[in-house]
Every structure is written in structure tokens, then in C-alpha cells.
């Protein structure tokens, strides 16, 4: 499988954000997207996920028979955690919604939230919400991970966990596109620099 974007042109609020961006990531690969604030990193990820239609250019999956949206996880800056549901209910909803079948307990254990499984999402800190979002990636396996500032709010242990999860995901043939300001520590990651 290969994720390919060709000559993407995207405007927001009437101003061009992405102008002729192309990328190609193969199974097992990783791409970090860098650039200053407002360079269009988040926009690029949302275009890849099919949430924003580009003015020109297109995104496609090579050697894959599924709909692109059924193959992707998007970890945006909003964590999609419902305050009124417990941590486990939040994760169960995301898993069932995305058509996964992974074990909830195992995933929560992996991201270090198993002790909080019964607490409402509203009591989680920003870092814990992000960990819960990471658990989604594990319960509903999808080959493409689109990560928007994945280390935001994560502590050092959380960042190390992210690096491990990404390495395991790539070893299993997954691919990762991550937007970031900071070095993420992914091995052999290609870099796409947006803006100037």
C-alpha cells in the first residue's frame, strides 16, 4: 500500500494554504510534516483524511481496495473525548464506530489508563485525553495514521510510548504521517517542509 497525494492546492478563507503539495508514503514508512504556524500542516492532514476537499490535486491509495477513509486514523488536536462517558465507554464507542475489534483493557493498559477506566472522561488531564486518543489507534487497527502534533500535552513517558507505538505500527506494515514542530524521534522518517 502507498499513500499518494499529487499537487494539492487548498485554500482556506479565500487564501491559499497549500500550493502544489505532493507526497508519497509507502507501507512501513513515516513522513513528518514541519513548518511554521499557519503553514498548513493540520490542513494537509485533514485533506489526506478526506475531511477537506482540495481545490485541485488528489489523494489516493495505491494497491488498496478499500475506501481511504476506512483505512485512516486521524489524531487531531481535538481528542474527541466525551466528558459524560467513562474512559472505557469512550474507547468502546470509538472502537465500534471505526469497526475495530481490539481488546479495550489491553489498549488502556498499553497507554497507562487502565486504572482510570471507570472514571468519566471529564476528569482526565490534557495528557491523559491524548493517551486515550492513542488507545483508539490500537483498538481499531487501520494502516494509515495521520497524527497532528501527537506529542502535544504528552509527558516524556508518553512521548516514548508514542515512538514505540509508531515503530510497532510501521513494523506491521502501517504508515504514519505526522505534523509537528518538534523532533518526534521516528526512525528513518522523511520530512516534508511546508511554507518558508
Amino acid at each position: 500500500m502507498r499513500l499518494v497525494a499529487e499537487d494539492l492546492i487548498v485554500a482556506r478563507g479565500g487564501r491559499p494554504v497549500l500550493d502544489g503539495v505532493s507526497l508519497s508514503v509507502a507501507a512501513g514508512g513515516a513522513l513528518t510534516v514541519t513548518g511554521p504556524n499557519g503553514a498548513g500542516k493540520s490542513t494537509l492532514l485533514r485533506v489526506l483524511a478526506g475531511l477537506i476537499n482540495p481545490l485541485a490535486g488528489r489523494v489516493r491509495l495505491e494497491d488498496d481496495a478499500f475506501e481511504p477513509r476506512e483505512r485512516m486514523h486521524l489524531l487531531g488536536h481535538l481528542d474527541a473525548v466525551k466528558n459524560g462517558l467513562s474512559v472505557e465507554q469512550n474507547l468502546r464507542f470509538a472502537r465500534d464506530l471505526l469497526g475495530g475489534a481490539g481488546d479495550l483493557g489491553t489498549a488502556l493498559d498499553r497507554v497507562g489508563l487502565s486504572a482510570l477506566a471507570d472514571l468519566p472522561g471529564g476528569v482526565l488531564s490534557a495528557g491523559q485525553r491524548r493517551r486515550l486518543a492513542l488507545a483508539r489507534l490500537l483498538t481499531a487497527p487501520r494502516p494509515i495514521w495521520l497524527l497532528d502534533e501527537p506529542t502535544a500535552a504528552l509527558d516524556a513517558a508518553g512521548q516514548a510510548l508514542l515512538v514505540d507505538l509508531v515503530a510497532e505500527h510501521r513494523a506491521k506494515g502501517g504508515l504514519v504521517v505526522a505534523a509537528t514542530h518538534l523532533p518526534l524521534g521516528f526512525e528513518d522518517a522523511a520530512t516534508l517542509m511546508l511554507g518558508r
Partner: protein
Amino acid sequence: MNSPHAALLMRDLALARGGGAGLGVVFFLAVVTLIPFAVGPDLALLRRIGPAILWLGALLATLLGLDRLLQADHEDGSLDLIALAPAGLETMVATKILAHWVTTGLPLVIAAPAFGVMLDLPPSALGRVALALVLGTPAMASLGAVGAALTIGLRRGGLLVPVLILPLAVPVLIFGVSASGDGAEANGALSVLAGLALGYAVLGPFSAAAALRALRD
């Protein structure tokens, strides 16, 4: 039962149980109680305009919470998650409408006959009003979803949604009230109301999904 639709339905029902699902019925009761104070204690008059009072009260009560129907999921990022589910956005919106109706519309239908007694409606009319509301409240929920989708990015959407959808609710109100009477005319109105409800139930999810796609940022 772990399809995307079932997951969304169960989650929305669980969230509604957690917060304020009965508020619509209380508001409905408030409207039905206030109108007799305004028109005076004339039982014959109340009996005559009773169905209209019930319909107005139910109509206004369905407007409560419509702005949160999609906005809550928009604000916390859940809408992006839903967009990546292996299901069409239209059917996911339809599922949200169904959950919204079960938690806000259905209680109004159940409460309406009880409130009708307060307006001295005859027993036969109580059943007719409930029957008409069974058709009218899903139509309102479908309309509301379109309004909610169109105002999704707006801070004051709560005021705009009723203004947007009330004109489109006029046919539902007209045929809903006539269907609540009896005789051949009421039966005809009930058929038209059923047609309206089906039409809105089909068009609503498609229009709302189209609006969500167009307004996505």
C-alpha cells in the same frame, strides 16, 4: 451489535441519560400550563383549542437542544471521528436524528395525552393528538438537524436554528393540528402529515450531511 450506527445510537442515548433529557417535557408542561392562564378559565374554549395548544407546546419543546444536536460533536472533534467511520455520513446523521428523537421527541408524545387531560380534551382526541405527534416530532427532528448542520460553526446558533426551521415547520403544524381532530378531514390531514414526515425524514439527513461537508474546516 457493534456496527458504527449502533455504536453512535448507544452513545447518544447514554449521553442523553446523563444530562437533561427530561427538560423538554418540563418546558412542554410549562407552555401548556401558561396558555390557559392567558386565555382564561373557559373549558369549552380550551377543549376547542386544546390540540393547537399541545402542538404549539410540543413544537417549541422540540426546538430546545437542537443547536447541540451536532455542535457538541463538532466542538470536541467527535464529528471527525464519525466522518472516518465505515458508513455514509447521511446514515450517521440519520442515526443522530433517531437518537435525538428517542430522547426528546418520544417523551413529548408520551406526555401529550396526560397534558391533554388538563385541557379537558375528550379521550378520543387524546389518542389522535399522540398519533399526530408520533408523525410530527420526527419531522421536526429531521428539520432541526438541517438547521443544526447549517449553524454548526456559529457561536449563537441556538437562536438561529429556530428562526431557520420554524417557517419550514408550518406545514407540519397545520396538518398536525388538523390531524388531531376527528372526521374525514382529520384522516386526510393525517395522511398528508405522514407524507411530510417521510419526506423530511429522507431529505433531512441528506441535506444535513451536505451542509456538514460544505462547512467542514
